[in-house]
């Protein structure tokens, strides 16, 4: 079932949490709300769930306007950051609770609980209490509980942020697998860009209560529309300047860089976003940028170094062979993005 959100605004007292947010998630897709803490992503998710009411705007599940439908009739599954497993119930009881409320027969409940726990790989742990499980296992139970009722939409609020790094990667693949197997429409809140890029069909980058850009992970990464999106998603260097009469970039410090094609109308203030992996070291005179290496870090497969341009701008680039600090390098941008809207950096 698709979710459509139109013009949602929400204020808590004087502070604005959400400002006229639009978003639509097609049926069967997983959308992430990506942003730093305080950007409104959790508030938006809680409004979709019905835990909070929006001040203005409309939410629809399919054709149905659910603004006035209370949480317990919305047919949602919700996975909480804190897992929110009921400590006085066993694993099986946690999963079965919602099914029992639906007055399903005992056999049907047992059947669905078994299926749900099998799906998250917890068969055999039915009689444990939540306190006896590890964090990862608890989150699997929470997922099974959320999905047991076969809800219309699955909502997840930073479900992995309490887990350690390795488990996080494992669990996010697991979540993606289950979401695709069940074909459920899902909204996933996270502040972790790797998580968002890996599991989403759709990423909505939020900043200051607004959605800055919505798109496929590749779009958001490769074609950021605002400086915030460019800087929040992945590592980036933003060169700020004005487009000269011949379409080159005049840097604030006085230098001029040509990118092989006009960057926009002359006189326009733009940012050029350069990903480290899009820069290549060149030996000959074709270099667009020439700078001194100020630091270099080894990252296993690659190295990421920073070169200081004559005007003082710092440019991050990826390369393989080691470079001594202080060496002069010439760099060419194989790809770049012109970002028109300046919304600050993350």
């Amino acid at each position, binding site marked *: 079932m698709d979710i459509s959100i139109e013009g949602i605004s929400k204020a808590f007292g004087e502070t604005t949490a959400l400002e006229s947010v639009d978003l639509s998630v097609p049926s069967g897709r997983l959308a992430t709300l990506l942003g730093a803490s305080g950007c409104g992503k959790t508030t938006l998710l809680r409004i979709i769930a019905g*835990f909070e009411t929006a*001040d203005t705007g409309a939410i629809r599940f399919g054709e149905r306007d659910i603004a006035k439908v209370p*949480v317990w009739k919305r047919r949602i599954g919700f996975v909480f950051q804190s897992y929110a497993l009921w400590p006085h119930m066993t694993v099986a009881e946690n999963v079965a609770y919602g099914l029992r409320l639906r007055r399903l027969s005992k056999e049907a409940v047992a059947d669905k609980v078994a299926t749900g726990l099998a799906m998250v790989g917890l068969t055999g742990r039915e009689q444990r209490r939540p306190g006896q499980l590890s964090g990862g296992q608890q989150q699997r139970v929470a997922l099974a509980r959320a999905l047991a009722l076969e809800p219309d939409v699955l909502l997840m609020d930073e479900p992995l942020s309490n887990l350690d790094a390795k488990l996080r990667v494992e669990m996010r693949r697991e979540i993606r697998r289950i979401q695709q197997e069940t074909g459920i429409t899902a909204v996933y809140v996270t502040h972790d860009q790797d998580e968002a890029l890996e599991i989403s069909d759709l990423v909505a980058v939020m900043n200051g209560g607004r959605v800055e850009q919505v798109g496929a992970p590749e779009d958001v990464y490769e074609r950021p529309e605002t400086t915030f999106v460019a800087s929040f998603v992945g590592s980036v260097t933003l060169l700020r300047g004005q487009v000269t009469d011949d379409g080159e970039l005049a840097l604030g410090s006085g230098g001029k860089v040509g990118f092989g094609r006009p960057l926009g109308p002359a006189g326009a203030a733009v940012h050029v976003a350069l990903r480290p992996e899009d820069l290549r070291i060149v030996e000959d005179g074709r270099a667009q940028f020439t700078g001194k290496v100020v630091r270099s870090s080894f990252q296993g497969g690659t190295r990421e170094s920073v070169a200081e341009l004559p005007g003082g701008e710092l440019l991050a680039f990826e390369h393989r062979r080691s470079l001594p600090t202080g060496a002069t390098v010439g760099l060419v941008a194989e790809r770049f993005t012109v970002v028109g809207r300046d919304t600050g950096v993350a």
Partner: protein
Amino acid sequence: MAASTTARGRPGRRSRSGWRDPWRLAGLIALLILLIFIVYPQLWIVRAAFTDDAGAFTLARFGAFVTDARFTEPLLHSVVVSLAVGAGAALVAVPLAFVMARYRIPGRQGVLTMLTMATTSPPFLGAYAWLLLLGSGGIITKAAREAGLPLPFESILGVGGIIWVGVWFTFALIFLMVYDAFRAVDPALEEAAASVGSTPWRTHAKVTLPLAVPAIATGCYLAAMRIFADFGTPMLIGGGYSMLPVVVYQNFMSEVAASPGVAATASLMMVLVSGLALVAQRRIVARRSFAVTGGRDQPLRELRRGPRALVLTGIWAALLLGFVPHLVVVLTSFLRWQSGILQWEPTLENYRRLFEESLQPIVLSFVFAGIACLIALVLGVVVAYIVARKRFMISGPLLNNLVMVPYILPGTVFAIGFILAFNHLPVILTGTALIIVVAYFIRRLPYVMKSIETALGQVHPSLEEAAMSVGAPPRRSFRDIVVPIIRPAVISGGTVGFLQMITELSATVMLYAVPWVTMTVVIFTNAMQPGSPFGVASAMTTVLLVSVYVPLYLLRRRYKTVSL
């Protein structure tokens, strides 16, 4: 444009749906109950205090409290005795608590259990039992006279007796609070002090003790207030030493010179003093509240043989003195009394007479405390839930503050308010059994409510949201999720409330009317009349002790700890 019209439409709808919240109705009912039974009686006290005997407005009564020795004296006495008891109890409790918290003491669990028991002992028990021992016709005083041994005092009656009884009645309270505080001090803090060259004694004085100051202050405050509000002790062994609760009682209940106005004024003085004490305690605690939790547990160190013997003697001597009343009462309940004089002759006669003649007070005590306890629990859950979870603009803060008012109202004051307010229309309760039930549940409501609020604080709101997300309406999620999780706190808070209600005397003695007589009233009236059946009173006190300690024991066994 469209957005702005919806903007105007929404808030109305939202507040209407907010009004449909059943908690709002429950909150309003709770608020109504609190207004009727807390605010309304207090208004009558204020009114009486500002009205002269002819019915005109006057400030003279308060003037008299500053100038007239008949009133300045009890005020001064009450304050001095309370301070002395607080200081004396701390002097006993703090060193013992420190040693128990830091060193390996044989029988630790037993000692802690006994101290917990001591804190729930009936308030007038000490006075009654010490009177039996050291009164002018007391067991020890008489034996000493007969043996020709000189005693340093005539009898325990008087200010010394009140302080003596008060100290042994309250030291366990301070001990338990301070003990917890000493245990909670992160050893790393003390190790840090040692690492910069502080000697162990200096560390205790400069690091450990200051960290325990909030607990000591709170313990002293509770101890001082117990004796300040206690009516039974000064009445039984004051021997003419006037204190405020006695003045209030006598001015109100006396058949010859009753003056409700004076009683009301004295009541307001009591509220004023206990209010000021609360403010002082809050300030000390707020200024010095350090986060010392987390970190490791305090390791228990070994004591050398000599100091250990000293410490053990101290602990058991304190415990013995704390439990002298219990021993005396239980012992004398099995001995024959003849016209107020103890015969050293074992008998079950007292119990036979008790169950033949005075079964009704026992039953009534249980019924009153039981019903009041259930009401306090229901109302406590409602208020705690609203305070902890709902953001009601008006009823939320009102409930939160109002419910705590009985906390600073001494039982005597409470009773006067009830009598002044409910002996005429629109609400008449005086002379009924209901007035005692209502007084019990309102007085214990703050304690019950706080214990439930603490438990609710541990139920993360997302647990309820999770239930709603799988289809449980709020009422259902409250029943299936919240109630089971807070049940231990509810049971524990309810049991402690029940114990305090069943031992209540200060308010009961003013509110009761025949035939609604409770155990505490029977014991008190017996103790006040020389030559009355002390044996039966002792037997009844023994029954009361059993009804207090059996539930407490079960509770402690089930939930390991009890918070009072």
